[in-house]
């Protein structure tokens, strides 16, 4: 479509004859809708199939985490925090725990850091597989859903075998990860570690996920209809993306090679060899493709980590009642959805004085009014799906 929006607006405002002059229609997309990834409401002014003005209305899922965290202790905050982006549950806990450990100036054992890294990358694979399942479904192709979710089941089963939870692991503790048997038990003498066979099963599962990613690429990537629906649709230029704070695969698809795994030291990513996937155009197809290729990179990282995982403790020595000394710090991490950060203000007590949660999807969808202006109604769905947001992440 090469007609620009100004011409369209002019054409629709010109009245050909009194009887067929039409008004705009206000269409409410959501909050209950198959494609809005949760309770997002878009109030769209639509003329036929072309939409002029889209205002997102959010807050249907606001749970007040920042206020709640002021009356919780640090381990209790961990349980709230992994419900922010529930698709990649494990990855939400990490920056918060690292912030608390930074204020306490704790040294986390190597083995715990490697385990955290493996589980974070598995959460990233799970999140990107959900995207690869739901995005073609929004365009109309129903089959990739089943392929991707079947692979995700492998990853979630592995996560459950280690942490006990598929979506809300609660596996991190201040100072490391949860030791396998609770403290104070009679069985403290047994080795506290990952379940037997976990590393081997993970390696095999990663091979199978790699095969499935190839299948998905075959099925979806070359399909002419997918290309027609996503190429050139919803182009996000670099300057706009950066000014709005868009992060993660969305930013990398617009050509900005920012990957916080390479610049931040919250987990030992610098020991592993992986590529930062970027694309050039910043349209929906690029955003989809970047996420598919990132699954392969995560598989590489996990395999390298499994090969070189050291032995050791799973948790540093911490007192029973954890009090974090006074201080402020900001830790940012590369979550599957984008940049997630926690600004932790501690006053020396058992809980935070103020916790500011910078969630990725909040900034990612603040761009919707800009990007959806003058777009066709089916393309609204295509663009929204390609931004890959979750309402828990938006609303906190």
């Amino acid at each position, binding site marked *: 479509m090469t007609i620009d929006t100004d011409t369209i607006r002019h054409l629709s405002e010109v009245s050909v004859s009194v009887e067929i002059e039409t008004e705009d229609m206000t269409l409410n997309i959501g909050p209950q809708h198959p494609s809005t990834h949760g309770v997002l409401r878009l109030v769209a002014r639509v003329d036929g199939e072309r939409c002029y003005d889209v205002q997102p209305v959010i*807050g249907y899922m606001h749970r007040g985490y920042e206020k709640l965290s*002021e*009356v919780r*202790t640090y381990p209790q905050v961990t349980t709230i925090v992994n419900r922010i982006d529930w698709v990649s549950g494990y990855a939400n806990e990490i920056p918060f725990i690292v912030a608390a450990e930074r204020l306490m100036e704790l040294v986390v054992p*190597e083995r715990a850091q490697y385990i955290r890294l493996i589980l974070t990358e598995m959460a990233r694979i799970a999140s990107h597989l959900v995207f690869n399942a739901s995005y073609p479904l929004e365009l109309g192709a129903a089959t990739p859903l089943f392929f991707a979710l079947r692979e995700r089941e492998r990853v979630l089963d592995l996560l459950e075998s280690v942490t006990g939870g598929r979506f809300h692991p609660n596996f991190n503790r201040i100072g490391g990860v949860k030791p396998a048997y609770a403290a104070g038990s009679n069985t403290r003498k047994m080795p506290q570690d990952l379940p037997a066979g976990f590393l081997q099963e993970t390696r095999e599962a990663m091979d199978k996920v790699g095969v499935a990613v190839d299948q998905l690429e075959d099925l979806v990537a070359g399909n002419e209809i997918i290309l027609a629906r996503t190429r050139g649709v919803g182009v996000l230029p670099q300057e706009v993306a950066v000014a709005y704070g868009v992060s993660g695969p969305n930013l990398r698809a617009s050509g900005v090679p*920012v990957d916080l795994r390479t610049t931040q030291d919250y987990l030992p990513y610098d020991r592993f060899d992986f590529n930062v996937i970027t694309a050039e155009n910043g349209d929906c197809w690029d955003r989809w493709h970047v996420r598919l290729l990132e699954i392969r990179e995560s598989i590489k990282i996990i395999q390298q980590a499994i090969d070189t995982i050291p032995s050791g403790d799973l948790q540093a020595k911490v007192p029973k009642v954890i009090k974090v000394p006074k201080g402020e710090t900001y830790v940012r991490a590369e979550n599957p959805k984008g940049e997630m*950060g926690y600004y932790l203000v501690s006053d020396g*007590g*058992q809980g935070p004085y103020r916790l500011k949660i910078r969630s990725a999807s909040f900034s990612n969808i603040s761009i919707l009014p800009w990007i959806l202006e003058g777009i066709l109604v089916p393309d609204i769905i295509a663009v929204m799906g390609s931004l890959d947001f979750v309402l828990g992440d938006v609303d906190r």
Partner: protein
Amino acid sequence: MTSSPSETETTSLQEFADRVAGAVSGVAELQFGTAKIKVRADSWVEAHRTARDELDLVFFSWLSAIDWSNQVEVGDPPREEVEERIELLSGLSDVTEGNLVIMSTDLPVSSPRIPTLVDVYAGANWHEREAFEMFGIDFEGHPNLQHLYLPESFAGHPLRKSYPLLSREVKPWPGKVDVEAMPEKGRSDEPSTENPEA
């Protein structure tokens, strides 16, 4: 790899913080790996414009506030007396090296107001709306200063320390239980979680 920054990282971060502080005429403070630059409230927008144009901090990460107050309705009051103010924070970053600064300024608690950052960073729009509804900060010149998360008719500013958690009024928290006691040995009516072969 430890979780606190190494010596060389701290020095380069200190250099970066000093450079930023010099450019925006603020005071740099480095703690726990985070560079915080305190500027005056009347040069808030200018400081951001300088940061964006001259220091290459083009990525707008977030904007929020802290309510420093000695009397709190929720949680514990601060252990030492703090100066009562609303501290406005914004996070800016560059896209090449991953340097991030937190710009901060202080606003008075009663009627805090400050010019908007929307002309400098378009992304500040929603963050400022959230700060407005949560803390009551008035952003002058904002195109659409309305509630973002809360319903239109909501009164009060929830993230202020003087705003109570209403669920606590109804039912008190049963105490800060951090570590529960283990079940006693030998109880036969509950399944044991211990390994019988230990």
